[in-house]
């Protein structure tokens, strides 16, 4: 029962709990920000697991990402304030079952196999960052580049899809 374990459990619990809140609250802004805090808790877990760079990155990226999510919720939901407690779900039983089954299956996968020896120590943060850099710009350069290109393409495509189809509308 190490300190690390306690923190891990705490942030893990927070992440899961906020994840539940996402689909239970009626206020859409709340649900988006709940997702944000869930992601932030995950970032904190990364930090606990001594993956400093990834943790900070996760915490940083999700803040803006989920804020954008929030405004899209407000834009596209009928009742963003959640004043009238309207039900925004369908095929509830089915999805509940699927979710539970998926959960149990994954849990089995987690708990049954023998994961073999667990590493005790990790390289320091500076080292990690440096190694990651070498990895990205060395062995896995191609993958990294393709990921970058994917983002670029997605950005362009998304903009193309989203903008007003013709200029007259702007007037």
């Amino acid at each position, binding site marked *: 029962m190490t300190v690390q374990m306690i923190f891990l459990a705490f942030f893990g619990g927070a992440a899961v709990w906020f994840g539940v809140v996402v689909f239970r609250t009626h206020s859409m802004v709340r649900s988006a920000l709940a997702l944000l805090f869930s992601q932030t808790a995950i970032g904190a877990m990364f930090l606990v697991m001594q993956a400093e760079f990834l943790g900070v990155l996760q915490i940083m990226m999700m803040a803006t990402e989920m804020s954008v999510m929030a405004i899209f919720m407000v834009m596209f*939901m*009928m*009742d*963003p304030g959640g004043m009238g407690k*309207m039900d925004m779900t369908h095929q509830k039983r089915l999805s509940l079952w699927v979710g539970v089954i998926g959960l149990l299956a994954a849990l089995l996968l987690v708990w049954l196999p023998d994961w073999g020896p667990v590493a005790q120590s990790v390289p320091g943060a500076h080292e990690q960052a440096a190694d990651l850099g070498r990895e990205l710009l060395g062995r896995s350069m191609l993958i990294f580049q393709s990921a970058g290109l994917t983002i670029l393409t997605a950005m362009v495509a998304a903009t193309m899809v989203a903008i007003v*189809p*013709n200029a007259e509308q*702007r007037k």
Partner: protein
Amino acid sequence: MTIAGAHAGAMTGLRRLISTAMARDLTAFVLPGASVARSMGLDLAGSPLRIVGTPRHANLLIVVGPLPPGLRDAAAVTYAQMPRPRAILALGAGDIAPLPDADVSAPLTRAGLRSGLADLRRVIAAGAFRADSGEFNAPALEVRVEYTCPMHPEIVRDAPGDCPKCGMTLVPRETASDGHGGHGGHVMPREDRPNPADHAHAGHAQDAGGSGAYICPMHPEVISDAPGKCPKCGMNLAKAEEVESHGHGHGHGHASHAPSAHGDHAGQDDKAGGSGAYTCPMHPEVISDAPGKCPKCGMNLVKAEEVESHGPGHGHGHGDHGGYGKQQDHSGHDGHAGHGGHSKAAIDGIEPHFMSMVEMTKDQPRSSDGLQMDWIKVPFGPFFPGLPAGLRLTLTLDGDTVAASDATSLVGATDLMDGPQMRVADFVERLATMMPLSPVSYRALACAAIEVAAGVEPDHDARRGRAAAVERERIASHLNWLAEFGLQSGFLWLAARAGALQLAVQGADVAGIATQAGAIRRLSRRVQAAPLMRMRLRRIARIGKDAPASGPVDRARGGGSDARTGDPTLKDLGFEMRVRNGGDALARLRLRCDEIAQSLDVIAAAGRIAVPQVPDVDRVSGEGEARIETPRGTASLRVKLANGKVVEADLDTPTDVNIALVETVTAQQELGDALSAVASLDLSPWEVRG
């Protein structure tokens, strides 16, 4: 001795310290506005207090001059928004009900302000807290809680429960006892009151029932004479009239809410709704009787009703979270309230409780970029920082773009005469005091009109002096506008400097003005050279040649309306009309700076300043008209004298002309641009007549 708006709590040691702090740190909200206070000669910026833009941050309400009846309710709301402890300082204000009695009253002079503030400090330090602080109540604040359905606003109950139509929980909403009371310049829940005008649609749409063909709400081309399901989407077929009623609701939604942006659009839809023509989903103006392609974008034309049924719009919700605005969503929505219930429940494969968003939002107007964000009605004014005091500007915002605007004056339209007949002197006084932002000009106007009517001719010096007085007021007024514009655009140095210069100029004699001339010229140069100024104002609030406009607004677009051009007195004082081209807010700023310089020269040439004296007319009768160029434009007054008394008077003011421009200059502008556009018109709500 405690102040009226004392905070609850006994006066303990710490509270004593805090009270002294409050007394030292006065944050004031000024009624009707800082600009009015300046033109009445009060130097608020120079006083030991901070003027804040929202009553929420103020602990002192300063009422300057008599409070116009139209502003009473708004004043009460504003006062209610201030956190306690809150004090009231009344300067030359008589009866300020429904506000509580002022904690300190003082005459409307600089000395009065000084002594009043000193007294106020003592009062607050002594009595900021009181064990039993009573609630403040006013008719404008009385609210009644009622429960309504976020989706079906026509459902209004007195008790909580579920909506009979969609089963949603009814949400509480506060409404005013009166239909819609005075909005303080600030949204607060008390003001979340529905606008009766908008709810009027509900009944209209519902009674459209009756018998006839059955049509699919989604696919109008599907028509059957017996009830059943639509072969295309499986929805229950609805009575034709009900589908038609969408058209009604839609038209109303437009007419009542977006006349500027969507007027034509509305017309088209109503026509289409009736005749079932084909139109382009992207270009509602494209209408054809036969299916085909859109000449503009080549899209397939669709049935008009289909366009409506696919009209975007959403976020009823936010309105329900916020509670403000959303009326047009509702009114539009009411259109299909009649059949909303059953068509929902019957779509194949959808649980009965599902609420179709298309159903909900089909009748809402389209916004300019085709993507509609929440439409919320936001009141600006009558005490909004940077907007003319007394002007209530209600903007219907689509996201932060202005979809529709409505500017009304809460202070104008008072009667020229207070009786069947008035003594000449009283009449002049009355007219001058009616226009606190430019009293000298209207005094001069009244005198001139009466002289014409009485056939008396002021001598040469009097005319020169009078012209100079009007020009002096023009300088002061333009500086006042500069100060307000500085406040509105966050150019705080300008606000402070122009305000100080205005106070120095108004009431100064020729020598005094000569000493300030250099500073004023430097100011106007610096304003025009300030960084970001061009970016802020260029191409904002463009006004075409044809739109009726008066004064600087007209001259800034190359127009030639100026009552001074024909005046021989001004001619030999070396006056010639200044004109700028462009017609945008930047041109107006520059023109006003030019006019300031011009007026400085005229005053220097005149050599004397004489506030117009009331002509002594003995029991003559006659009729006469005079025109004078006030700082805001040409005002003309017709008076009728009957043996020495004014029996009839008729006034035309420039703001009457210019206030009509608000609609056009704000349409489809981003919020900030719209507000600086309104500010650039330099309206004076006091000049608005009936």
